[in-house]
């Protein structure tokens, strides 16, 4: 029976409060939004969500990446995500982009793939949309990712039905030249765009399957903001308790990730037998009807939302490249070489090193050059591949570096000893400087290292296990 077999989510730990934005522009702000770290984007957040979702399960045969903010205009992101997740080369990868509905459309495509015989397919939905400083979207838009696995066995929730409409309507858009979100006049796009479309998809879906509001434990749907969300729910006769919290006050409107993320939260709180009506919006609507079989074990959305760090407006500007800062006086790093990166592609994408067949020592060359001679026993070319990205470790020693060119100073670098053997000198991220200590447990996280000559260099950093 086809359904959702696993879920995962990634909310960056940083928050920008409406109050902080209000302080900047002398306006009134409320709530807060999740902000991706300076070294994160929709690819890195998708990797984090996908790894959580896939943990302990057989690898999916398709990975679909959905977003409106893919880092590259030409170059597939799904492929980078699949590589970081160490999926088999036969895994089908595709990007679903350009619409807020990308997440739900990718879910329908995954559903089709499984119906057509794939054992499972994973969808990541993520976004990092930017509102222009001082504008109405600045406060509204947040960053996050989630991942949903569709499979044919052992479902958390069966998919009972689906329904889609497309509708050409210009409410929000970005041309290839736009940095910030553009939109039509507020009441017009709400009254003539979002509200009628969302009401229509929800009521037509119920009609199609001969169901009414009372048949659903939860209704989970996208809205541009909390007000629009409440208005739709009221209009269709759903009780307040049936409506899934959109989390807009806590993390903002996370674009293509918003509705799928609400679904993840709903599933994590659901009881077996619950029926869920779920709808995404953007240039039309996609809807799904789900029947809960069991609640996923593990973290809930509440767990993910409790650990947070508030940043100031200046950091936000710098992290999002909205403010030019002085170049460091240290010598510039030479740009990475494409051919050199290619030779160590296994290490770059999923942190593969080697394990000596003779002496069993796991090793990862600190400078990324492929190990040919065992550093322990000098055996030559007698290794098996050994993955470090999924290993935890401990911080053996560290330096808090004021000179490191980072957008979140001070930089932290350390020597990480992996549980099970092997050592790596690397950058750390998402740390509280005052809590860093020798012996601190860490895990690996896929991050953006630098961007030179237009190429984004992704690699692994260590971060404290919280």
């Amino acid at each position, binding site marked *: 029976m086809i359904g959702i077999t696993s879920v995962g989510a990634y909310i960056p730990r940083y928050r920008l409060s409406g109050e902080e934005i209000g302080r900047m522009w002398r306006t009134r702000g409320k709530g807060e939004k999740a902000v991706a770290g300076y070294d994160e984007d929709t690819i890195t957040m998708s990797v984090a969500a996908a790894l959580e979702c896939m943990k302990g399960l057989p690898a999916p045969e398709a990975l679909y990446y959905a977003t409106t903010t893919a880092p590259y205009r030409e170059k597939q992101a799904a492929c980078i995500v699949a590589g970081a997740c160490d999926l088999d080369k036969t895994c089908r990868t595709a990007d679903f982009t350009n619409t807020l509905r990308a997440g739900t459309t990718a879910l329908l495509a995954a559903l089709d793939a499984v119906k057509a015989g794939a054992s499972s397919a994973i969808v990541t939905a993520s976004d990092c949309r930017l509102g222009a400083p001082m504008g109405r979207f600045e406060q509204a838009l947040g960053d996050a990712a989630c991942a949903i696995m569709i499979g044919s066995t052992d479902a958390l929730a069966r998919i009972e039905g689906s329904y889609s409409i497309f509708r050409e309507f210009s409410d929000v858009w970005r041309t290839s030249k736009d940095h910030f979100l553009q939109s039509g006049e507020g009441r017009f796009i709400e009254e003539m765009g979002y509200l009628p479309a969302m009401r229509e998809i929800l009521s037509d879906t119920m009609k199609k399957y001969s169901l009414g509001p009372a048949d659903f434990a939860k209704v989970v749907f996208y809205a541009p903001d909390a007000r629009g969300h409440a208005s739709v729910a009221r209009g269709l006769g759903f009780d307040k308790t049936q409506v899934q919290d959109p989390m807009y006050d806590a993390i903002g409107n996370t674009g293509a990730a918003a509705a799928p993320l609400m679904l993840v939260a709903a599933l994590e709180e659901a009881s077996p037998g619950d029926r869920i009506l779920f709808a995404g919006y953007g240039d039309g609507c996609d809807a799904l009807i789900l029947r809960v079989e069991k609640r996923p074990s593990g973290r809930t959305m509440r767990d993910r939302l409790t650990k947070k760090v508030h940043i100031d407006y200046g950091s936000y500007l710098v992290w999002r490249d909205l403010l030019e800062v002085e170049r460091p*006086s*240290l*010598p510039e*790093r*030479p*740009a*990475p*070489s*494409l*051919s*050199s*990166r290619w*030779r*160590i592609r296994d*290490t*770059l994408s999923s942190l593969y090193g080697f394990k000596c067949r003779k002496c069993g*020592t796991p*090793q*990862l*060359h*600190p*400078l*990324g*050059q492929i190990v040919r*001679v065992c*550093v*322990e026993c000098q055996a030559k070319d007698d290794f098996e591949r050994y993955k470090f990205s999924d290993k935890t470790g401990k911080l*053996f*020693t*560290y*330096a*808090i*570096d*004021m*000179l*490191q*060119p*980072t957008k979140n100073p*001070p*930089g932290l*670098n*350390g*020597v990480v*000893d*992996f549980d099970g*053997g*092997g*050592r790596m*000198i*690397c*950058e750390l991220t998402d740390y509280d400087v005052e809590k860093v200590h*020798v012996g601190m447990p860490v895990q690996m996280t896929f991050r953006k*290292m*630098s961007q*030179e000559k237009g190429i984004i*260099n*992704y*690699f*692994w950093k260590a971060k404290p296990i919280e």
Partner: protein
Amino acid sequence: MKSMGSFAVESIRDKVAIIGMGCTRFGERWDAGVEDLLVEAAYEAFEDAGVAPKDVQAAWLGTVFSGMSAMTLSPLGLQFIPMTRVENMCATGSEALRGAAYAVAAGVCDMALAIGVEKLKDSGLTGVRGPAVVGDNPDGSACIGSGYSAPASFAYLGTRYFHQYRIDRDEGKELLAKIAVKNHQHGSLNPKAHFQNVITVEQAVKAPIVAWPLGLFDCCGVSDGAAAAIVVRAAMAKNFRSDPIYIKGMAISAGARQGSMRSGYDYVHIDENVFAGQQAYAQAGVKNPRKEISCAEVHDCFSINELITYEDLGFSRRGGAKEDIHAGAFTLQGDLPINTDGGLKCFGHPLGASGLRMLYEMYKQLQGKAGPRQVKNPRLALTHNLGGNAGAGIGCVVIVGNELNKKP
């Protein structure tokens, strides 16, 4: 500690003598280019040895960033002799000496020039680049480590040393500060040093942090400079001067980055230093370095590295550097004065020149010509470099003396 493997002991002892040395003033030499620095150091050495440039039969140039190939030596006007450029990171100057000394010891020439130079301040940048190999880093770029600075790569030693020996933050900072205070005191007596100011422990402790636990005064200067040595067969030395200096031991040890890759490495010692030291001591016949070495120049690129080196070279017992620092053992008044010319901290650190600059000070000390910094009756002196960093380095030790050993 692993066994050192086999090597030929005493292969260099007393075979080569240094008969002349030169060293420029180090610092921000806006007035001088690479050519000026080379000429300044080489001609001081020629004059000191009482020889002419045409007497030199071969030359080795050490530089990391300031020129490719032997053509960098063109400004000296040497005439069609064999010349070679060598590079071994911060051990580059000592590597040039090795080339020249081995050529003389092998009998392929009677007199050779070793010269090191670095012109860092023309870059307009702070600090130095890493070994510039494309694709050196995990993300495919080339610089020191994965984006971290040189101070950070040495700060690892500090963090771990304090942790292992249960030294709290304040005491640790004070310990490192005392090393900087000593080197500034020594530098203040040296007109060729980059920094000639004295500082207090309080100043050093309160200075801005560069890479915790290292502050501003824990980091050496980025300087321009050059230094040169003229070496001849030991048997010829007295023809040139009455007080030649003899090479007693000379060793380089380069690792395979074991420390960065193997969990066993402790970050409170540096194997490359230990191996280089043991080999050089064996060649020189030194059994008790603390007693037999009269004075030394060690690689204090960062104060913690000087501290670790005390222990690696057997000047202090393991974990015992603290007592010796507090007792002032390595000051000019102590029993083993270290970095008598101010060290890398105050004399400055033009990479390719540093090994030979250290040798210059030891040469002057052994000749009794170190002026206000003179150590009493020195017999054996030592220079030490560490290229690279902890866990992935090149250790180099040279031992020199002012008398020939009696043949047993």
